[in-house]
C-alpha cells in the first residue's frame, strides 16, 4: 500500500465547527444532515490519522509556520489518536440518537458541534497554554449545554460548574506562570526534557501542584468531584448532554492527567499517591452512587468511581495497566453514554427519575431495556463484554501487590452493587397496562442504542484484534487470552452473587443511605476541598522530594 500523505491535523477540529457555522444559514432539517455528514467525515479522518500514527509514529504539525517552542503545534501520538477516534464515533452516534428530538434546534446543534471541535483539539494540543485556552472554551460551551433547557436547578448547576472551573483554571494559569519561569518553555516535550535535566527537583513542585490541582478538578478526582454529578446529571439537561459530558468531556481531564504524569511523573514520584487517590475516588464514587435515588445521579456518581478505576490503571506503573486504563477510558465512554441515553428514554416514558418508581421497563420498553442491559453488563465487567477486558488489564497491571488487587476487587464489587440496584428498574410490575405502553418509544433512538450495545459486545469479544489496531501494545494476544476465561467467569459470578446478596440483605432498607444522600456541599466547601487538595499535594511533595 502506498503511503498517503496524512491530512492536516486541524481538519478534525475545524470541520465540525466550519460545517456548523456555514450550515447555520440553511433550514434546520438540512442543517441536521450537514452536521451528520460532517461527523461521518470526521470519523473517517480520525481512522485515517490513527492508521498513520500506527504506521509512522507521532504526527507533528506546526501551525502558521512557527516552530516550537514559540509557535502553536498540533501533535497526534499513540495515546491521543485512539481517543480522537473515540470522540468522533461517540459524537456521531449521539447525533444519530437525537436525530428527531425536538430540542435539537440550530443553536443547540451549533454549540454541540463546536464543543466537539474544541474537545478534539484538546487531544491534539501540545502545550500547556493551549490547554488553558481550550479548557476555558469547553467550560463555556458545556455550561451553555447544561442549562440549555432553562430550568431552576439547571441555572444553579451551570453556575456552580462554571465558577468552579474558572477557579480551577486560575490555579492552572498561575501554574503556567511558574512553569514558564522554571523551564522557559510551555510545550509538553520541552517541559518533560527540562524537568528531567533539572538538578533541583524542588523547583518542580509548585508548578506541578498548581496545574495538577486544576487537572484533578477537571478529571473529578477525590475531593473535587462535587461539581461532577451536578453538571452531568443536571435534571433539566438533555440526556445527550449528560452522555457527552460523562462519556467524552471528563475524559479530556483524564487525558490531561496522563500528560501531566508523562511530563513530571519521572522527575516527581507521585505514582503511589495517585494510586491511592484513584482507589479512594473509586470507593467514594460507588458509595455515593448506591445512596442516590435519581437514576441519572446514580450514573453520574458511578462515573466518579470509574474515573478512579481509570486512574488506578494509569498509575499502576506497568504497561499493561496503563493501556488497560486507556482501554477503560474508551469502554467507559461507550457504555456510560448508552446508560445515560437509555436513562433519558426511560425517565421520559415513566415521567420520573426516582429509581423506586420505575419498574418493569423490560415490558414497557423491551428494546431499550436490552440496550441498557448490555451497558450494565459492560459496566459490571461481565465476561465477553468490554468492561471485563479493561478491568482485567488494570488488575493484572497491579499483579505484583495483593493489597492493590484487593482494592480493585472492592471497587468492582461496589460497581456491581450499584448496578444490581440500578437493574431493579428492569423487572417488576410496569404499573400501567402493557399493551397501551408498548411501542410508545421511537424505533430510531432504540436502534441507535442497540448499535451502542453492539459496540460494547464487540469491545469485549474482539478485544484482542481491536486493541492491536488501537494501541501499540506489545502482545495484544496475551491481553485477551482465553486461558483465564473460565476463572474470570467464576470470579465474576461469585462477585455478582455477593453483590445481589448484599443488595437484598442490606442496601434495600438502609436508612444511612438517605442520610448520606441528604448531604449537599456548597460552593465554598467545594473550593475549600480544592484548596485542601492543593495544599496536601504541595506538602506531600515537599516532604517526599
Amino acid at each position, binding site marked *: 500500500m502506498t503511503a498517503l500523505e496524512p491530512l492536516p491535523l486541524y481538519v478534525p477540529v475545524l470541520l465540525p465547527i466550519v460545517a456548523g457555522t456555514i450550515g447555520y444559514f440553511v433550514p434546520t432539517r438540512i442543517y441536521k444532515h450537514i452536521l451528520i455528514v460532517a461527523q461521518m467525515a470526521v470519523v473517517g479522518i480520525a481512522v485515517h490519522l490513527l492508521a498513520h500514527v500506527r504506521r509512522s509514529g507521532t504526527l507533528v504539525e506546526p501551525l502558521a509556520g512557527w516552530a516550537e517552542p*514559540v509557535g502553536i503545534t498540533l501533535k497526534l501520538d499513540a495515546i491521543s489518536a485512539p481517543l480522537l477516534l473515540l470522540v468522533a464515533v461517540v459524537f456521531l452516534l449521539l447525533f444519530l440518537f437525537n436525530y428527531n428530538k425536538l430540542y435539537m434546534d440550530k443553536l443547540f446543534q451549533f454549540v454541540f458541534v463546536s464543543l466537539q471541535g474544541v474537545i478534539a483539539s484538546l487531544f491534539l494540543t501540545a502545550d500547556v497554554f493551549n490547554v488553558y485556552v481550550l479548557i*476555558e472554551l469547553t467550560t*463555556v460551551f458545556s455550561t451553555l449545554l447544561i442549562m440549555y433547557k432553562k430550568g431552576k436547578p439547571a441555572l444553579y448547576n451551570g*453556575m456552580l460548574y462554571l465558577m468552579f472551573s474558572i477557579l480551577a483554571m*486560575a490555579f492552572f494559569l498561575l501554574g*503556567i506562570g511558574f512553569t514558564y519561569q522554571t523551564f522557559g518553555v510551555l510545550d509538553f516535550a520541552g517541559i518533560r526534557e527540562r524537568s528531567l535535566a533539572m538538578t533541583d527537583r524542588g523547583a518542580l513542585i509548585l508548578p506541578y501542584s498548581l496545574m495538577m490541582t486544576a487537572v484533578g478538578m477537571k478529571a473529578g478526582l477525590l475531593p473535587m468531584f462535587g461539581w461532577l454529578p451536578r453538571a452531568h446529571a443536571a435534571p433539566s439537561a438533555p440526556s445527550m448532554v449528560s452522555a457527552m459530558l460523562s462519556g467524552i468531556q471528563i475524559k479530556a481531564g483524564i487525558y490531561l492527567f496522563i500528560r501531566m504524569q508523562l511530563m513530571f511523573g519521572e522527575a516527581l514520584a507521585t505514582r503511589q499517591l495517585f494510586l491511592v487517590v484513584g482507589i479512594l475516588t473509586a470507593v467514594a464514587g460507588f458509595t455515593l452512587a448506591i445512596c442516590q435515588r435519581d437514576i441519572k445521579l446514580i450514573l453520574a456518581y458511578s462515573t466518579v468511581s470509574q474515573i478512579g478505576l481509570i486512574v488506578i490503571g494509569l498509575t499502576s506503573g506497568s504497561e499493561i495497566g496503563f493501556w488497560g486504563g486507556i482501554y477503560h477510558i474508551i469502554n467507559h465512554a461507550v457504555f456510560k453514554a448508552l446508560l445515560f441515553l437509555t436513562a433519558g428514554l426511560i425517565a421520559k416514558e415513566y415521567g420520573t427519575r426516582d429509581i423506586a418508581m420505575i419498574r418493569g421497563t423490560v415490558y414497557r420498553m423491551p428494546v431499550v431495556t436490552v440496550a441498557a442491559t448490555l451497558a450494565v453488563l459492560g459496566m459490571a465487567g461481565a465476561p465477553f463484554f468490554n468492561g471485563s477486558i479493561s478491568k482485567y488489564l488494570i488488575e493484572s497491571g497491579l499483579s505484583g501487590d495483593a493489597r492493590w488487587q484487593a482494592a480493585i476487587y472492592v471497587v468492582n464489587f461496589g460497581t456491581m452493587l450499584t448496578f444490581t440496584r440500578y437493574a431493579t428498574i428492569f423487572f417488576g410490575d410496569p404499573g400501567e397496562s402493557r399493551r397501551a405502553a408498548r411501542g410508545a418509544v421511537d424505533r430510531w433512538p432504540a436502534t441507535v442504542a442497540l448499535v451502542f450495545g453492539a459496540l460494547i459486545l464487540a469491545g469485549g469479544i474482539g478485544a484482542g484484534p481491536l486493541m492491536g489496531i488501537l494501541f501499540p501494545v506489545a502482545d495484544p494476544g496475551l491481553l485477551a487470552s482465553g486461558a483465564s476465561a473460565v476463572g474470570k467467569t467464576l470470579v465474576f459470578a461469585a462477585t455478582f452473587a455477593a453483590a445481589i446478596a448484599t443488595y437484598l440483605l442490606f442496601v434495600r432498607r438502609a436508612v444511612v443511605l438517605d442520610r448520606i444522600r*441528604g448531604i*449537599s456541599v456548597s*460552593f465554598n466547601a467545594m473550593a475549600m476541598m480544592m484548596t485542601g487538595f492543593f495544599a496536601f499535594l504541595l506538602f506531600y511533595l515537599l516532604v517526599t522530594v
Partner: protein
Amino acid sequence: MLEYVTIQNASLVLFFVGLYGVLFHRNIIRTIISVNVMDVAAILFLITVNARPDQLPPVGPEHAARMVDPLPQALMITAIVIGISVTAVSITLFIGLFRKYGTSDWQKIIHRLTR
C-alpha cells in the same frame, strides 16, 4: 526586607487574597470578583516572568536586544480576553440565577433547591 517587595510576590499575595474571597464569601458576585482577582494575579505573575525593570516593551524593530521576553506578553493578551469573556458569561448566568431564586447566596440557593 525591601528586596521581597517585588511585583511577582505582590501578585502571589493578590492570588491568595482572591482565594480567600472565594473560600469565605457566600455571595456569588463576590465569588465572581474574587476569581477575577486570582486570574489577574496569575496574569500579572506571568507578565513579570523573565522581566527586568530596565527592559523595553516588545514593540517595534529597534532595540531587540533590550526588549522584554515577548512570549508571556502575547499569551497574556489571550488570557485577558478569555478572562473577560468568561466573566461576561458568569455575570449573565448570575442575572438569570438571581431572577429565578431572588438571592445571590450560594447557601440559600441550595436550601431552596433541596426544599
